[in-house]
């Protein structure tokens, strides 16, 4: 039976977008506070390994997800310490985090390679909803709980950023830390918290890969998804709801490239992920000139009393 391309694109696009969306939402919050963290890929892979290890040892995949969030947070705090407190070059610190993450996970992950995970996160079939025409089979059949969590997180974050006092505080720290400071906001604390949140989300994104998407550990299994998440943040103009659309677009094209491989030149398929990353970046860069939401103080360490 041949599945309709619409259903398969919706289902696979969503499934593939979940890790990208989780990591992108975390990075989005960090960047809204003014901190760029290029260590997404590193935090993700550390999350993937720790998630697998804990899920494997405990038999409970949710414990794995929580462990991944914890490890991602710790890794992000390292970046926060270097870039916020020590005011080291934020790009170098982030890149270092990626490299350390990839190397360390490869080293520590050796004993876990080649082992299936006995209890992965279950796939959900939501009765009733899955029979909605057009949308049901893709949205509510065989998807993973973490996907719904990611979508929920996007809506909650949007509400937080634009409709709550906390969101205004976070954005003001990213736009004008000196002004926020003058109003009594603890800039360093806000930036630390935002960066830590970014790490936790990247960790969960990694766990999605190792305990849900493909329940096993293999070295380098994030395969560049962290970088794609970074591109999505820019493409989405730092808006959580647009991030949902951007991540889905990416997942959908990824699926379609395989579905219709027979009709596409292979070179096209090979470059699709990169093509879109570049396209996203270009669109993002074009957007910058009309100020499409890039936080004003992005990537600049804050020094109290300096202008």
């Amino acid at each position, binding site marked *: 039976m041949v599945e309709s391309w619409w259903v*398969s694109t919706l289902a696979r696009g969503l499934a593939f977008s979940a890790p990208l969306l989780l990591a992108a939402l975390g990075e989005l919050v960090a960047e809204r506070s003014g901190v760029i963290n290029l260590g997404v890929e590193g935090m993700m892979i550390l999350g993937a390994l720790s998630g697998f290890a804990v899920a494997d040892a405990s038999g409970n995949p949710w414990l794995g997800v929580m462990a991944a969030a914890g490890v991602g947070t710790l890794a992000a705090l390292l970046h926060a310490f270097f870039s916020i407190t020590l005011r080291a070059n934020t790009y170098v610190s982030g890149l270092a985090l990626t490299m350390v993450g990839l190397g360390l996970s490869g080293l520590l992950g*050796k004993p876990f390679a080649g082992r*299936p995970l006995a209890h992965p996160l279950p796939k959900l079939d939501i009765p009733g909803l899955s029979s909605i025409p057009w949308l049901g089979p893709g949205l509510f059949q065989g998807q993973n709980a973490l996907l719904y969590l990611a979508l929920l997180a996007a809506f909650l974050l949007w509400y937080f950023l634009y409709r709550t006092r906390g969101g205004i505080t976070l954005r003001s720290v990213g736009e004008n830390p000196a002004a926020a400071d003058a109003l009594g906001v603890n800039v360093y604390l806000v930036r630390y918290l935002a960066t830590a949140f970014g790490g936790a989300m990247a960790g969960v994104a990694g766990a999605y890969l190792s305990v849900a*998407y493909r329940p096993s550990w293999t*070295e380098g299994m994030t395969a560049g998804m962290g970088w794609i998440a970074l591109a999505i943040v820019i493409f989405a103009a730092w808006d959580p709801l647009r991030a949902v659309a951007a991540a889905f677009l990416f997942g959908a094209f990824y699926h379609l490239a395989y579905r219709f*491989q*027979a009709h596409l030149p*292979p070179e096209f398929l090979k470059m699709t992920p990169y093509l879109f990353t570049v396209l996203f970046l270009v669109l993002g860069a074009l957007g910058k000139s009309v100020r499409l939401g890039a936080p004003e103080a992005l990537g600049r360490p804050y020094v109290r009393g300096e202008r």
Partner: protein
Amino acid sequence: MKRVGLAVLLLLGMLAMAEGKLKAGWIYVGPIGDYGWTHAHDVGRKEAEKAFPWLKTLYVESVPEGQVGSYIDQMVRQGVRVIFATSFGYMDGVLEAAKRYPNVIFAHATGFKRAPNVATYMADFYQVYYLNGLMAGALTKSGKVGYVGAFPIPEVKRHINAFTLGVRAVNPKAKVLVRWIYEWYNPAAAKEATEALIAEGADVFAFTEDSPTVVQVAAEKHLPSFSHYSPMLKFAPDYVVSGQLVHWGAIYKDFLAKVYAGLYTPKNLKDVDYWWLLPQKAVELGADYGVPVNPKFIPALKAKKIHHPVFGEISVYDLVMKLKAMMSDVELAFDPFQGPIKDRKGHLRVPAGVRLTQAQLESMEWAVEGVTGPWPNEPK
């Protein structure tokens, strides 16, 4: 300065000799933890080290193909006398290094260029793929078998062709749907390629790619699959039917024993080319060592009867076992690529009564009848 270096090198080499140990080094293209290609080579290395008390081994992993030369330099400096380079892309780097170090023995996996001190070796699966194809043909209900390939190169094309010949020997109308991921190792790509094949209606799966992804994805949908390279039965004990396993250790032990005995020297390797198959026990049928067919699938395979041109009425299970025995014999009473075979464009590629030579197998670009999907570099 160079002279001093050379003297030191000689001295180190002599020291190693004085110790009485032969030092062999492995250069890997991926991480050992890939649970695929590099992992299998490393198992072979360990097997060799365990077998020979006079052998000392070392290795480097994840060496980019363009940088093999400098890693060889380092190994030679450490006193390594035999170097195994385990990726096709190392070919030219190895040949250059072989000129720099005429007294070091090199062996290059999957390559075809040799020199007085460079041998080549390969453990090939095409026989095993044919056997897997027979079983896949018996198990498909939709008549569509999915295949996820890494790169459209002759090695992978040969395997898909052998597999498809097997499928069609049992199920003449079945098709093998092929998707390429253009990477040896990319679990996400392998997963989405498999999902795309499922959406196209494929219900049995095989692959050439360095991770157990295809097996896992198929099992999630309760569909049978054939594993590749490493023992993957445990990833889906109810759904993996069989597969192919490699024993690089067989080649490594043979090669190193001959070096140690003085049969192989840096002067006489020009014609040393290992092309090891079932008879040499370099490859094995199965998804786990010693388990050629998952017992859960034996009843279904025994129940499926076909009319075979040689054996007459026979069950697929018996056919697999018979042909496996024949192909495991050095006399090779059976070969998958035995004419007449037509390619999918209708050209006769192997005339009746003829078998393909090793060179023809190694340069195969055409697709047999029954293969559907993109096939780059397909001859007109």
